[in-house]
């Protein structure tokens, strides 16, 4: 077979095609090199901003100074007035925070976390104020062998995977010393540890933690109680003997913790689960069950124990089922991350069986109606004390880091680099789904530099007069602040 001769025209066409293809190939390669033009000269020439000697370490320290003001806007004549010493109109907090992790021996570490606060307000002795030192943690940690540890001292032991409410975080009660924010994540930073001994064994497939916290109680001792500026406030964290056993592991991406907790010989069981689904979603749940009284009954007992308040005369005004019985606490939630923005949202449903039911709230407000009907001066002292007892229930819920109501919706959105690289925003909402009142907090942090942060937080309480959040005597709060990290 003779090959067919190619005509000159076709030859020219093929040559042209080859040239075009060759140029296209070169252009494609050149296009790759164009990417280099996107790198500014200053970037290519830059040296590392961090020296290589900072690879973590034997000892580490962290310090910051923080000043924050708070200005409250009060509601006129709330249904249940607050006692006069509650919630000043304007206050200021100046804090020195220090944390040190010191390696004493190769297998022995010492951790110290302390906050020294100067607090002042317009209602008391502004601007002289008072000093409150919070020794958050001070403990020794011994790495006995392998990944087996023994810790002793004041330790912040936290458990749970949820954000807004942690039923299995058994050491949370009464541990927040200063309520610097309504954001649960921020409140965790400001909490007192419990004096305990803790043993932890971390294994390739999971870990086992055992903790025992003794009762350390001295109602009159100035060092042990929270009655002096430099007291250890052990009456808040070690009022009862407590024990915890916790097993943590994961199976095929499902992480879980199983917990057993005992307080004054009353056992509570708990568990939490978390799992990632796809690239953007994490789902989680947390649950505990154990015998306890209702929140309101516990609050009144707490007042009686801590402040010698006898609530019996006001029992008629107070909500509650005071029986001791098994009650559940539960959280179900998810977090979702948006791919186009640096935004994550946590959505949670909280259930607190000991919390106030709609009929409890009705009783709570009944006192207010009575006060309006029987507005006689001779009854004022009685009503004042009743109001204090009523508010102490809500105060106790805050101290216990649990919802005051039996049901709550919680949404928290954090947005890094919002509008500008230096701005981080956090918004959260707590909603009472029954009376539809809500609390909202917006917090902005502007990173002036690596060391200086400006902050501004706004609180807003909304709802009807006889709703959970509408009955709060404040309707909004403004909190500007500045932090210097060094």
């Amino acid at each position: 077979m003779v090959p067919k001769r190619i005509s000159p025209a076709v030859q020219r066409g093929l040559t042209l095609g080859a040239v075009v293809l060759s140029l296209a190939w070169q252009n494609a390669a050149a296009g790759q090199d164009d990417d280099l033009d996107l790198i500014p000269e200053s970037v290519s020439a830059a040296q590392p901003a961090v020296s290589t000697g900072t690879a973590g370490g034997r000892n580490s320290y962290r310090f910051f100074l923080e000043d924050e003001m708070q200005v409250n806007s009060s509601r006129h004549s709330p249904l249940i007035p607050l006692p006069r010493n509650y919630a000043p109109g304007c206050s200021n907090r100046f804090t020195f925070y220090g944390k040190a992790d010191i390696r004493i021996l190769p297998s022995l570490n010492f951790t110290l976390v302390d906050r020294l606060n100067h607090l002042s307000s317009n209602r008391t002795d502004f601007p002289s104020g008072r000093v409150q030192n919070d020794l958050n943690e001070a403990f020794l940690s011994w790495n006995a062998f392998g990944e087996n540890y023994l810790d002793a001292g004041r330790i912040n032991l936290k458990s749970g995977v949820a954000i807004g409410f942690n039923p299995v975080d058994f050491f949370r009660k009464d541990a927040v010393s200063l309520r610097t924010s309504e954001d649960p994540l921020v409140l965790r930073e400001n909490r007192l540890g419990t004096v305990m001994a803790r043993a932890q064994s971390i294994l390739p497939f999971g870990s086992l933690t055992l903790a025992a916290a003794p009762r350390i109680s001295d109602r009159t001792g100035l060092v042990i109680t929270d009655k002096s500026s430099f007291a250890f406030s052990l009456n808040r964290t070690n009022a009862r003997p407590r024990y915890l056993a916790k097993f943590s592991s994961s199976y095929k991406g499902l992480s879980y913790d199983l917990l057993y907790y005992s307080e004054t010989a009353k056992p509570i069981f708990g568990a939490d689960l978390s799992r990632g689904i796809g690239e953007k979603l994490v789902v989680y749940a947390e649950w505990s069950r154990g015998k306890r009284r209702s929140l309101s009954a516990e609050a009144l007992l707490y007042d009686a124990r801590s402040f010698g308040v006898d609530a019996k005369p006001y029992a008629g005004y107070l909500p509650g089922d005071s029986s001791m019985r098994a009650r559940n606490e539960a959280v179900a939630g998810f977090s979702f991350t948006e791919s186009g923005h640096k935004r994550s949202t946590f959505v949670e449903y909280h259930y607190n069986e000991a919390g106030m039911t709609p009929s409890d709230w009705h009783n709570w407000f009944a006192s207010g109606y009575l006060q309006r009907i029987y507005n006689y001066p001779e009854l004022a002292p009685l009503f004042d004390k009743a109001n204090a007892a009523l508010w102490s229930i809500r105060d106790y819920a805050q101290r216990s880091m649990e919802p005051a109501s039996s049901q709550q919706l919680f949404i928290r959105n954090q947005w890094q680099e919002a509008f500008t690289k230096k701005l981080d925003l956090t918004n959260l909402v707590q909603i009472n789904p029954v009376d539809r009142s809500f609390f909202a907090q917006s917090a902005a942090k502007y990173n002036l530099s690596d060391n200086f942060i400006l902050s501004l937080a706004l609180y807003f309480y909304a709802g009807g007069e006889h709703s959970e959040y509408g009955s709060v005597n404040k309707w909004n709060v403004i909190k500007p602040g500045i932090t210097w990290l060094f």
Partner: protein
Amino acid sequence: MRTMISAVVLTFFALPSYAVQTPKTADGIVAQADAVRNPDNPFSIVVSLTEYRAGKQENSMALNVYSKENTATGQYRTLALFLKPPKDQGKVMLKNGTELWFYDPTSKSSVRISPQQRLMGQASNGDVMTANMHKDYKAELAGEETIMDSAKAKVPCYKLNLTSRGDSNYYRVEYWVDKADSRPLKGKFYSDSGRLLKIVYYGGYRTELGRERPTEAIIIDGVDPKLVTKMIFDSYNNRKIPEEWFQKEYLPRFKGD
């Protein structure tokens, strides 16, 4: 003739050079490039990241990263301790397969995060270093190209098209590997919608842990090309990293030393 060629090839391939041992399949090339980036044994590095916008420095941070391959899955598990800036100092991020945890020492709490949430931070840029491309992606040899590396030297390369096997952070990657010694030089990382997310130049090669490894990467944001991140890798060290360290409960105890 064919026998001679085979002999020459065999002679050269028998030389103790890493490059000439490379099987010239697409997967083989990617595996060899992975070996350049990732030491065989558990290791730690200090990573400093500086972010620039239009050439002007905006943010910087430093991490101490501990990495160990999971021999069962081939994935690298990493523990990253934040060294700087001061507001993030002491925070720890754990990546163990699909389990991602973020520990904040101030609140003393570990929060489980999604892969997307991890990608929000600059720390996610570490992915482009410790990703096991061979395990995560199916490779296809797209041809050979001479490109300029980050030092603007012309280097003959294999060009590979990588497609996610399912669990990776990027859907598709275009990848350029030095023909001579399997050094990865450039990658372009795409989302499943075809959007260009990152362009990465690997450079600053020097001997670390027994062979030439990249000590810098320049990452150009695909969405906002004025945003460029420079990563410097330093203090390569072989480490004994126990399996226990990849448990969530270990995070509060991780000191990065």
